[in-house]
């Protein structure tokens, strides 16, 4: 990658308060889909790094396999090993609900990471990014800049259309644009891959000879989107990214591409999930909150990274 920043410092964190003190030993099982995407790769890496920071935590990572049934089997074999907690990023929330409930019934603290189970009782706590909120943040950034221009051409490069999260992002985006009297005029879906982003964008740029703004759901595929834009020699619009990769932040800082901002969907949630699991098992709450237990639901803000604040966010950027 283009930047040698040692960004591990921003991806994990141990509080300075009394919660940092080692307590009862905790074994945490961890399962996330196979990493062939930068964001998922960062999730797994962060979970491992965070667990390594605690002397009282032992991590049992199991590969989730390629689909929901395989992940169910993996969780079942994990249950056999009786960890204290399981941090679970499911292939599909609804499909993994039953097995998560089974783990809870076996007395294991399940922390649901990002993709939500269909039954709240299947997890002790849920920490997730805000897909709808991403769309909202992107919508606000673009809406503010194009306010009052009802004829503005706004394009959207979505991720994998067969996924619920893509629907949520698009809905947040459309809803927010509507409050500015704007709408999406061209929408394409890539597949969260660089070549996918390049291909659909190349076609998109043919479809619309003049564009005012583009929102790209995913900074991984954004590498391809930016390549297509450069190859077409188009400059008349600005672009907003999604997720918050390091590469995207570098471009925002340098201002060398139409990419002006990106809305975050931080993989650091995996680090936080490990911390939550440890606290829950040890029966501790969050330091700054009054309650004796960790909250049931944490939804991360989708923050907007622009040139003015990019330096603060850079440590959180993940390598695509």
């Amino acid at each position: 990658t283009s930047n040698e920043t040692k960004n591990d410092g921003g991806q994990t964190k141990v509080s300075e308060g009394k919660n940092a003190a080692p307590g009862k030993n905790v074994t945490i099982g961890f399962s996330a889909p196979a990493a062939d995407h930068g964001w998922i790769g960062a999730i797994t890496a962060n979970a491992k790094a965070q667990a390594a920071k605690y002397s009282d935590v032992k991590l049992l990572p199991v590969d989730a396999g390629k689909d929901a049934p395989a992940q169910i089997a993996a969780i079942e074999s994990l249950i056999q090993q009786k960890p204290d907690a399981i941090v679970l990023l499911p292939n599909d929330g609804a499909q993994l609900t039953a097995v998560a409930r089974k783990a809870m019934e076996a007395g294991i603290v399940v922390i649901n990471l990002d993709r939500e189970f269909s039954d709240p009782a299947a997890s002790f706590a849920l920490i997730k990014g805000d897909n709808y909120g991403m769309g909202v943040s992107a919508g606000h950034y673009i809406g503010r800049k194009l306010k009052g221009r009802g004829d503005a051409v706004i394009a959207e490069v979505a991720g994998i259309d067969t996924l619920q999260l893509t629907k949520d992002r698009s809905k947040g985006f459309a809803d927010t644009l509507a409050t500015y009297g704007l709408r999406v005029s061209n929408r394409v879906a890539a597949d969260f891959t660089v070549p996918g982003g390049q291909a659909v964008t190349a076609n998109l740029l043919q479809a619309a000879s003049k564009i005012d703004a583009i929102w790209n759901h995913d900074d991984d595929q954004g590498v391809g989107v930016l390549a297509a834009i450069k190859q077409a020699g188009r400059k008349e619009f600005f672009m907003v990214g999604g997720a918050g990769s390091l590469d995207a932040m570098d471009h925002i800082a340098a201002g060398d591409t139409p990419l002006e901002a990106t809305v975050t969907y931080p993989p650091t949630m995996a680090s936080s999930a490990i911390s939550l699991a440890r606290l829950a098992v040890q029966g501790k709450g969050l330091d700054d909150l009054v309650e004796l237990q960790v909250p049931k639901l944490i939804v991360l803000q989708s923050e907007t990274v622009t040139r003015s604040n990019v330096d603060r966010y850079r440590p959180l950027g993940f390598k695509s």
Partner: protein
Amino acid sequence: MKRTLGLVAVLVALLVVGAVTRPDIFGDTSKLWQNELTVLTLASAIGIVTVGMTFVMIGGGIDLSVGALLALASVWCTTVATQSYGVGGVIFSALAVGAGAGFVNGLLISYGRLVPFIATLAMMVAARGLAQKISGSRTQINHVSLINDLASEKILGVPYIVLVFAVVVALGWVLLNRTTFGRRTVAVGGNAEAARLAGINTRRHTVLLYALSGLCCGIAALVVVAQTTSGSNTNGDLYELNAIAAAIIGGTALAGGRGTIVGSLVGVLIFSQIANLFTVNNLPTETQRIVNGAIIVGAVLIQQFRLADLRRRPKLST
């Protein structure tokens, strides 16, 4: 026969690898039993699909739409409207959608004279799109508990879906080896023109073969719905490739006319056992993949080892 023995040897070799790397699981009878039940459970859906694929392939065709048909059937049978008819409605709709789509494949190939690869590729794309449309890309929860019980309830310690798998395999074996339908399948795939001139209605038979494959996808969809308690348009991803690979490893000829149900079964179990070994040994994905490639090559080489005498027959190597 010899070929299947070679395959079983590969399977045993995999278990030995398990015993060496994880003696705590593979050395303890009850844990081994549990583990192998997991292997069988995971093999069920793809295994049922592979039975149908084996028929299609022996009959000289190929069915790329199986994964998509599974997804479509799983989505269809978990729509709210269908679930309101209860367990009968769910089962019927899964089987009907699978068999119906397979029937269309068969018509396109037999009467539309499309190459099977293209016809079923088109069906694959279209069926996934339809599944997406019906489900709105949402995972649909199944509330018919009798279906979900298939995965969670056991009889004599064996999960129901494993039994379903066993029944499908047994029926498949009988159908292929003991019925006129099976005989016709071999004839159509071995030499379509000869079969036709011997008075076999090869077109109708081809239609039936694809419908059978679709039916298997419907059954497999029910298994997946039971396992995941839901239907989703992402189900059955890459099943087409895995089913074809399992069948070929099991000795089915891509060119048709040759293949066995037992071979396909063992092929599926080999893939399932490999995946299980990776998980219990906690190998990272990239290593899994590299090793997987080597194992596949090794398995086929081992299996061919006893076949030196058959090599002279040029047809066999294709």
